[in-house]
């Protein structure tokens, strides 16, 4: 089981908004990109920026384009079906959306990916959350 403290990000100190952020390594063939992802129960599917996709050598421009919805408007994305994510010692495959025109730090894991792999418990009163990966063998 992994227990992580919610993170406070620069610029958000006065708001007190804390983010459940998990260290994750994305793997595509010989390319690996360790970074940090927001664990988002409100997000349907994982999402990364095109900057991260480029670092993983994913040819996202050739993938079909779709339009998604956010609270602040629409965004264009491309779905890459076969990415690997590694959190601590646990690896899993996921389909990821690659969003154009978003901040480089946009990196989200959502209901269709990490929430299918683990029991995730948010304990906001402790400012921490737990990830307990399922034993799928």
């Amino acid at each position, binding site marked *: 089981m992994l227990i992580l403290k919610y*993170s*406070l990000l*620069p610029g*958000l*100190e006065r708001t007190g908004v804390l983010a459940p952020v998990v260290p994750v390594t994305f793997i595509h063939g010989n390319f690996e990109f*360790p970074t940090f992802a927001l664990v988002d129960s409100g997000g349907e599917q994982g999402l990364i920026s095109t900057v991260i996709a480029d670092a993983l050598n994913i040819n996202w421009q050739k993938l079909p384009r779709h*339009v*998604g919805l*956010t609270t602040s408007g629409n965004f264009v994305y491309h779905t890459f079906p076969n990415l690997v994510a590694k959190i601590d010692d646990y690896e899993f495959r996921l389909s990821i*959306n690659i969003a154009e025109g978003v901040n480089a730090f946009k990196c989200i894991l959502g209901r269709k990916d990490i929430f299918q792999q683990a029991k995730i418990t948010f304990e906001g009163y402790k400012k921490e959350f737990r990830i307990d990966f399922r034993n799928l063998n």
Partner: protein
Amino acid sequence: MKYKRINFIKLLKKYKSGWVAISSDFENVVFSGKTLKATMQKAKKYKEKLYYFPAGETYSNFVGLFSNANFKI
């Protein structure tokens, strides 16, 4: 049971733009650069695992709601 804490405020204090490479214990920024490519290039010979993160003034839209409307265009 593993316990992790990542203090982005402390890590990113000196970095207002570009990218940083953070040590795997999440305690230090080991490399930084104007672009991700430049930062990864500096880290090429570094043997330990590094985590990459953009450095910016604010992350006010780090948390936001996304939904796949799935309209093909």
